[in-house]
């Protein structure tokens, strides 16, 4: 028997906001019958662009129903920007914690919310991005990477508990291990910034920063970045993938890429897109 908190039991036995919303502003659907759980989340915005109504339909266990119910309560009254910041840990914390094996229920909540917000903004869900690693549950490398990074996961069991990957036949365990290793490899070695950089050291540091800090964040949104050249403190890059066509790409470039490089390489860096 699972040790559920009283709050989980309450949200399971008395779920809030069950049902559909007619003409919703955003709908997010995640999971499937085959996978054993699924969540359909609806929201409606008021005139101030705040979530005025949120409803859900869930197929799943007690913690899946409780996580869905909690999520609808949590997002009411928020702007979409505020709602988008909710993490799976926030959902679990709202419920007073979930058994480790059930953390994937909170991840499902977060994912459904992301899909619903993307739906409102007219974006396609991100599910199709990435390469399927776990065939049994259709989980991609990007989803696993993200769960590992955000929740600091260390073992294959952790990954299974959070995103289900590896919970079926087990054929993907080696690949999951590699993803965990590569993510923890990215996190561990903080590149040391020497007092004065030679040109070679500078280029190396720029490359490392792009790889470790910037690329993963862009990839989350389906984008990528390529380093073309370095001339003194001028860095020439090319944005790829969805970034290449994104209207906000110049903002990304100046506020994200350049500021990261200024912080981690040298404050004189100027980034230009070729």
């Amino acid at each position, binding site marked *: 028997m699972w040790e559920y908190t009283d709050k989980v039991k309450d949200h399971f036995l008395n779920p809030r906001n069950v049902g559909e919303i007619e003409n919703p502003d955003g709908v997010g659907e995640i999971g499937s019958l085959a996978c*054993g759980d699924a969540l359909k989340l609806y929201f409606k915005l008021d005139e101030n662009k705040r979530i005025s109504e949120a409803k859900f*339909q869930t197929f799943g266990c007690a913690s899946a129903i409780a996580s869905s119910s909690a999520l609808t309560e949590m997002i009411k009254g928020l702007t979409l920007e505020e709602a988008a910041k909710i993490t799976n840990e926030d959902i679990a914390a709202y419920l007073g914690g979930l058994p480790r*094996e059930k953390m994937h229920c909170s991840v499902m909540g977060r994912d459904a919310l992301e899909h619903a917000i993307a739906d409102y903004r007219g974006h396609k869900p991100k599910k199709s991005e990435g390469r399927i690693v776990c065939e049994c549950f259709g989980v991609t490398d990007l989803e696993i990477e993200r769960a590992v990074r955000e929740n600091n996961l260390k073992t294959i069991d952790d990954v299974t508990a959070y995103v289900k990957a590896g919970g079926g036949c087990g054929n993907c365990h080696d690949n999951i291990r590699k993803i965990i290793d590569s993510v923890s490899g990215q996190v561990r070695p903080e590149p040391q910034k020497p007092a004065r950089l030679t040109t070679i050291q500078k280029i190396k540091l720029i490359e490392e920063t792009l790889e470790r800090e910037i690329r993963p964040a862009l990839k989350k949104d389906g984008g990528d970045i390529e380093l073309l050249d370095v001339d003194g403190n001028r860095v020439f890059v090319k944005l790829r993938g969805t970034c290449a066509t994104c209207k906000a790409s110049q903002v990304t470039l100046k506020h994200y890429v350049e500021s990261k490089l200024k912080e981690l390489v040298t404050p004189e860096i100027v980034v230009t897109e070729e």
Partner: protein
Amino acid sequence: MKTVYVDNNATTRVAPEVLEAMLPYFSEYYGNPSSMHSFGGQAAKKIKTARSAVAGLIGAAPEEIVFTSCGTESDSTAIRAAIDSNPEKRHIITTRVEHPAIKNLCEHLGKNGCRLTVVPVDGSGRLDTDYLMKNLSEDTAVVSVMWANNESGVIFPIEEISQAVRERSILFHTDAVQAAGKIPINIGRTGVDLLSLSGHKIHAPKGIGVLYVRKGTKFSPFLIGGHQEIGRRGGTENVPAIIGLGKACELAAGHIEEENTRVRGLRDKLENEIIKRVPQVIVNGDRNRRLPNTTSLGFEYIEGEAILLMMDALGICASSGSACTSGSLEPSHVLRAMGVPFTAAHGSIRFSLSIYNTEAEIDYIIENLPPIIARLRQMSPFWQDFIQKQPAAGR
């Protein structure tokens, strides 16, 4: 709140008569049956009586009964003894729906020098006996097939299979943990060499099991130690539990008739009424060849743990073959082996009755389960999709 216990394939209550028989052997007659004094000797005498009662339940001779600590120990002992005493043979045949005590053991042996053949079942949980027979070979050391399945309740034709296997001079083991006490077992009509039983499934306490070893079967002990059980299982006997098991077997032999009439009737009533009152339910397993106490029902488009916990809130104790209850993510290996459609596998619930269940309890379930199913379906996006696709009349 009252408890309605319909999870008897998981474990059973200790019968009051069993408890009564056991109690004096904890603090009054606590002697060691191996002792020379008559104080220990009286425990030895009671063990002898118990051994006869256990043998009686399955039509065996008392000296063919070895007491163990549980069904799992019996299974492990049987398979390992079969392998150890046939060092020239390295092939094991078992089925896809065995209890983990056999399944995981055989998989372990399969990775450690043995060749493993796993026999499939059909959609109703019936064994593909042709497949089994075709795979028997010179190299086969043992065939292990459960007598009845713990989840679906489906009974396998052990008499026929075991005889055919025995004709080939291959050892045959059966895990009869779920069958014993629920259907008649007469070992003399079979070719079974090794058979496992568990006390706590038949109203004896937990911590006592039995391995039947046919006279003349080559054997090597799993627990090596003293001379207990004629050298077949070392370790001081669990005297009170053995005495309790003896009493439980005596009672079970007398209750088989009731299991197959009254208990079967209650099970059928439960099953039929639920099917009548709840749409989109499937029965997992061959309804014509099942244990009289078991029904596994798949409620489409909802998930089993949620059903169980809502029943639990009303005091109803059952179990599920769904993923979420076990901590694994996939439905049970039994339901998967049967190819139960995933629309129903995740929502499968097993009810297993005993002679202690009353008609009032069954009525309580019949009354309270349909609203739970309706409530969960009302929450399920797939149920909404399903009913929208139905003609208006079906709504």
